[in-house]
């Protein structure tokens, strides 16, 4: 044992019970340092002091096993401001916007700061296979450096495995890998993806069928309509529901036409002496065909008839192509949302918001946001949630300076929150556009 270790052992036991070992180190310290004291404890401390300094000063370098080199990443670096925002988002600020940020960074071909990749990989790994699109985005934005890191840390393999869709992933992979393969095939070759789904549908279990519908929900295509229409009669309730949601977001689908036929009976425009207004004739009750089209039946009992009717109205309008209203009324979204509709205003706001989000209609989203932020603040829980969703999805240019007024200090929290969110998204994309490589 080394002279130092002997001293440590003696100090642990205590000099009451043991001798003070020598501090001589052959070739370095040839004799024990002189002590001016006879107290064994003091002698031990003096020797320890000498050895401490000698050990610290005499430290020798060690060996290391070099890591493999990461492939170079040819993409230009993003601006420092953009990198700092990613750090803030990974630290917990608006984490739900991460997918949008990653998509924008990928679209601009920018390289994120590599030192943030571990946190990004951890964050997406925690989101897990449930959010395979986030995994794909993180892998693509992270580029070769993220793949290199995943090669060093098994925790992150899942993230980058998503990036390598192979036929094998489809035949042999886990659910998340199969979904990743199908989704990326659908981006590359949508017809081939539809064919693959159609060919696998009959033999697929409910988990696979719901995965198919979910993949088709990401950028719905009219070409997928036959599959989705058939899924409306699926034996599993929530596959039926999901298929109906996807078809409702497809303005050209048969379901959308059926919904339009219902909707135009429920909501009409009246141009009278007291001005133009909307008049609502809510559906009396739901029937089997409405249920097939995804309109949920109201809660059994307990709920009043007006509440049920409002619910049905909301469900129908939320699934109706928004073109129905602009065509039917001959007005633009910005005008329609300001029309007087009395007590029905919250229902219509919520329904149109859901429709605008599902149909990805930016004009409607802008009009609804503007209305909510400047004229009629939302009050009901459903409206507040709709506003939140609008602020997350509307054109971020709305968050630009001087587009929307600054909400005053007395504005309701939901208004301030929605404005902050829009501003954040605007800034976030602006920083990505501001890139200049090495600022």
């Amino acid at each position, binding site marked *: 044992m080394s002279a130092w270790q002997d001293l440590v052992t003696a100090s*642990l036991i205590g000099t009451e019970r043991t001798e003070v070992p020598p501090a001589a180190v052959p070739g370095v310290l040839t004799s024990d340092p002189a002590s001016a004291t006879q107290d064994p404890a003091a002698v031990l401390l003096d020797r320890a002091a000498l050895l401490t300094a000698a050990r610290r000063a005499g430290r020798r370098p*060690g060996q290391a096993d070099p*890591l493999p*080199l990461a492939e170079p990443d040819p993409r230009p670096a993003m601006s420092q401001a953009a990198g700092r925002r990613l750090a803030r988002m990974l630290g917990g600020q608006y984490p739900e916007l991460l997918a949008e940020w990653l998509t924008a960074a990928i679209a601009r071909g920018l390289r994120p700061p590599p030192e943030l990749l571990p946190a990004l990989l951890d964050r997406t790994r925690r989101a897990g296979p449930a959010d395979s699109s986030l995994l794909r985005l993180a892998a693509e934005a992270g580029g070769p450096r993220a793949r*290199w890191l995943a090669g060093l840390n098994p925790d992150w393999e899942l993230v980058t495995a998503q990036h390598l869709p192979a036929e094998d992933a489809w035949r042999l992979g886990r659910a998340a890998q199969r979904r990743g393969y199908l989704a990326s095939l659908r981006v590359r070759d949508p017809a081939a993806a539809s064919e693959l789904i159609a060919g696998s549908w009959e033999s697929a279990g409910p988990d696979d069928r719901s995965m198919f519908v979910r993949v088709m929900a990401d950028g719905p295509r009219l070409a997928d309509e036959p599959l989705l229409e058939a899924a409306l009669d699926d034996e599993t309730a929530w596959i039926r529901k999901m298929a109906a949601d996807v078809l409702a977001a497809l303005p050209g689908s048969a379901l959308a036409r059926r919904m339009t036929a219902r909707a135009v009976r429920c909501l009409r425009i009246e141009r009278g002496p007291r001005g133009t207004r909307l008049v609502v004739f809510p559906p009396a009750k739901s029937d089997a065909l409405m249920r097939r089209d995804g309109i949920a039946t109201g809660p059994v009992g307990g709920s009043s008839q007006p509440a049920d009717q409002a619910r049905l109205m909301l469900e129908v309008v939320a699934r109706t192509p928004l073109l129905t209203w602009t065509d039917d009324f001959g007005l633009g979204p910005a005008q329609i949302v300001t029309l007087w509709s009395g007590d029905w205003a919250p229902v219509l706001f919520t329904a149109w918001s859901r429709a605008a989000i599902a149909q990805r209609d930016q004009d409607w989203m802008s009009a609804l946001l503007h209305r909510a932020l400047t004229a009629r603040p939302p009050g009901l829980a459903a409206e507040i949630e709709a506003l939140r969703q609008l602020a997350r999805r509307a054109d971020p240019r709305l968050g630009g300076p001087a587009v929307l007024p600054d909400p005053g200090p007395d504005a309701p929290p939901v208004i301030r929150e929605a404005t902050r969110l829009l501003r954040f998204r605007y800034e976030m994309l602006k920083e990505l556009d501001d890139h200049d490589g090495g600022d």
Partner: protein
Amino acid sequence: MAERWNRARVLSLAPDTSSQQAAQSLATGRSWPLTGAAERGALWGECLGSATTPYRTAVDLSGPAYQCSCPSRKFPCKHALALLLLWSDDSIAAGGDPPEWAEKWFATRSARAGDAEDPKTPADPAAALHRAEQREARVAAGLDELDRWLCDQVRQGLATSQRSGYRLWDDIASRMVDAQAPGLAERLRALAAVPHSGPGWEGRLLEEYALLRLLVTAYSDPGKLPSALRDTVRSRIGFTVRQAEVLASAAPVRDHWHVLARRELDQDRIRTRRTWLRGRRTGRFALVLSFAAIGQSLDGSLTVGTVVDADLAFYPAAVPLRALVAARHDTLPAGAPPGLTTAGLLAGYARALGLDPWLESWPALLEGTPARTPLPCLFDAAGAAVPLHPGLGDCWPLLALSGGRPLTVAGEWTPRGLWPLTAWDHDGMAVGPVPL
């Protein structure tokens, strides 16, 4: 009025480039219906922004310190920077009284500054001498007590101290506070963490006790020490040297100082910022400390990754590291500073230990590649590795930054390993302080 700063110096205060750009576009007379400057280094102005009322911005050049009514979380905000740019361009008329809102803020600033300075200049030299003698006697008695305590620990055996809890060190630390030896008190308080610092804690505790007794021994016989070492011993015990004395005692060293790294530590509701510098010409390392109550902003004038042309006044010590910025001339653009080899780092530390055996954090500036095995470490071109501090964990961000290639890394070298603080990526950009 304070010496006018040039544009580069103003822009170097910006938290990021977008602030720099925003500030430059705001720095026009049109945006500022009201501006003013006072003799004592105070600027104020009202800036037209997107809000209905103009933003009210004030800058105290002595800090510099900033105040603005805008909601920006950036610090300083673009308004404060724009105001400084206007002043830098000589576009602000001097003189005039600040408006009430600015006057109020300047008043609270100067009241605070007054608190910080030590107004107790000795009116009576004899009384001052008497106080100094009293303190020496109190410290000497305290050190005797500490010595007995240290020997008692080793006599009874350190095995018991793991069970005794923080009170063991807290009590002796309080007695050192009473003995007017705050440096020792701080060191003792930190020991409570050692028994929980993982395998090898016994050795680390013995090292600390041994070095404390060495300090006691050194203080008790000052005649045997060279004067610089005496200064080191006294400063480690907790005797302070006034800034004015530092500025008066030695000729300042002018150099282009690379601002290498920054580390912040919180203790007793005080935040300490340690900023490490290295002179391009002299190769000297320097440490600039700044202090603030937690929640208040620290001096941000030294930005990591920049080079400042400045005169530094070093505190007297066997290994002079701590310094004051005596005068600052310019801020220059900078890339990565040249790093040392592992052998150079270890040799430098060994030499420094020969002069000051208590030295526990030594400035490290290495050209090295991070690796994970056998231990997280950094190795240089010759393959010589130094371990990273075990308190750092996996060091993934540092690895990610490197991609397996060499980086320039600045940080603190300690007996337990390297604590990286800043790394320069392959484009020469400083990254940090992130938890590397």
